[in-house]
């Protein structure tokens, strides 16, 4: 299969959308199936300047393309100008995404990888470049539009947003501007109560029940 043919197939699937009852076959699994047809063809469809950029040493559980995608999503999804919020640059957002993904079972991780590749590449049809190369405003508009789009579009945007958001907000450094207290028991010096006392139950109950 040549990459142009693969790309046409993906485009058709994309445009057709997914009927409600078909969806059980989709989810991330469906996304994976769509991308598996393309099997690398996308990368040939449109190269990105990001393809040449190095990744940090700690990137062991993400492909280079995934690293760049999440790093781009971090910038697009977490703007802090004009707010007291902490710059996402100062927080290990993509490293946290990597940790979360490391907990996925291999099959789901593979499906997700395929989905991420689809997300990055499929905008070539509508925008003429990959997601990682979209301007901030274009990328944000894309997320918003896809939130109202087909099941496939909603799945991909939701997954990426949730991963990036939780990777940022799980970091204690991001909490002070919101007044979120974080862990408190130790701070408040709460005493440990230990195990509850044994119930006062005569064993005779049991024998009666058994009889």
């Amino acid at each position, binding site marked *: 299969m040549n990459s142009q043919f693969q790309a046409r197939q993906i485009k058709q699937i994309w445009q057709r959308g997914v009927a409600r009852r078909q969806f*059980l076959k989709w989810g991330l699994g469906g996304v994976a199936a769509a991308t598996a047809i393309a099997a690398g063809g996308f990368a040939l469809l449109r190269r990105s300047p990001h393809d040449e950029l190095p990744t940090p040493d700690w990137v062991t559980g993400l492909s280079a393309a995934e690293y760049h995608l999440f790093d781009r999503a971090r910038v697009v999804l977490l703007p802090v100008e004009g707010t007291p919020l902490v710059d996402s640059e100062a927080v290990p957002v993509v490293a946290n995404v990597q940790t979360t993904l490391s907990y996925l079972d291999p099959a789901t991780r593979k499906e997700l990888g395929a989905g991420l590749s689809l997300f990055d590449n499929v905008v070539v049809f509508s925008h003429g470049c990959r997601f990682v190369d979209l301007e901030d405003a274009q990328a944000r508009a894309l997320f*918003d539009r896809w939130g109202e789009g087909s099941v496939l579009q909603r799945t991909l945007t939701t997954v990426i947003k949730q991963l990036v958001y939780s990777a940022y907000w*799980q970091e204690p450094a991001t909490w002070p501007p919101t007044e979120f207290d974080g862990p408190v028991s130790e701070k408040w010096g709460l005493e440990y109560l230990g*195990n*509850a006392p044994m*119930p006062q139950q005569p064993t005779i109950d049991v024998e009666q029940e058994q009889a």
Partner: protein
Amino acid sequence: MSQVKWQASGLQVHQASDVTSEHIALEADVVVVGSGAGGAVTAYELARMGKRVIVLEAGPYVPSQAFTEDFTESLHALYQDKGGQANSSGDLLVLQGACVGGSTVVNGCVCFRTPDFILQDWQRDFGLSELTEAELAPYFDEVEQNLSVHDNGEHEIARHGQVIRAGANKLGWSVKPLRRNIRQCGLTGHCLSGCKTERKQSMLVTYLPWAQAHGARIYSDTRVEKVVTEGGVASGVEAVVTRHDGTVAATMTVKAPRVVLAAGAVQTPVLLLKSGLANRSGLVGKNFACHPSLLVAGRYPEPIHPWRGAMLGVHVDEFMHPDKGGFILEDGGFGLVEMTMLAEPGTGKPFMEYMENARYLAGLVTLIHDHNVGAIEWDGERKAINYQLSDADFPSMKRAIKAAAKLHLASGATEVYVPASDKRVIRSEADIDLQVDSLENDPQHLRMVSYHPQGTCHMGADPDHSVVKANGETHDVPGLYVADASLLPTSIIVNPQITVYALATRIARHMS
């Protein structure tokens, strides 16, 4: 009976790190699979009858002192699939605890008895004539007493509960304090990360130490893979002990004439399917319900700090009966990470603005009486939770969202966020129908969470139309019991832990 040896804190648990041989062979009178609500209660009841009980738990033993009160870390440490367990289409997160104590360790402490109208349905539709309100009342009384269940005191109703209660009063809707199983609540708001100072009366600090005091032995990191039978009768289980790095420490067999499955409503049917047992009806894994919940957030003019104070304070039961709507609303506290999952205020700036003002939000949890349309499947390698909100249940979901929005507005909220994939904000009564009626029952449209999987090995009198009898024993395999949330023939609308405790107590007492 052997001497009772209660210890004041912690548990003696055999863990993977203690394993010294490649195979462990054990014998007992009863082997209990899972140490959550059903497993812990059964283990205690049987141990105190003098039975030799072994409890096998797939998850780790995490003592309370090790709880971090960090939700993300807790998801990874204490929850099934590190907190990522979802339905096949990925739009319903199915949360379950996976540690010694099971979901009771991470739950919100809310306690309800099974509503009588649900028991009546079970009697009528499933031949469960024994399960009357009068029959179950003593079991409920007992577990409630054992677990310090009480109505929330005024100090246990946090700011988010207070505003919701005021709004409900304004609307003339029935609103009551929630009952919870907690002693001297620390008001930390971190229930879902486990109660660090042992105030939540979870199985970790109640029935498991009590079972152990009566001689029950607990093995963590031990996943049961198969139930074994001899001559068609239960004879034990096969399990694998896995280290925390994922490597296998040992295999295990336990010989026991009684096997009690209490691995929860997702894993118990998986285990039966893997074992090829008790499925004459073809219903193992079917009949899955889960109270698909939404957390509807409202933004208030004054700070609420939804993470401060007891996590759950009051509930609105005005619409509980199916004839009146079939849902309940509970005020629910939450932290920042949970907040990111609730609403879609728009990408970029609007989202950051929403988060920056997190302290002005209060939440309402909706619980609906969903139909049992889902199925747990096992393809030989992976489990699948096939559940999509049914078209029959979608109207209840919409009614619940509308009621939550109306209640938030009456309580003084200026904005209510519909938890959908697209931006839907309600600012006045006039917006409610506009924003909610156009919702579609499509995958990935609503942001749903289930805390209450149920029903996958349901009780019933007819062996062709149910998996277990009212006494918990499977119809097909003598000696093989189910004692967890899989038992419930229909969803029960309300939070299920007390129902599981009461049924498990009854099952253990009736076990001969």
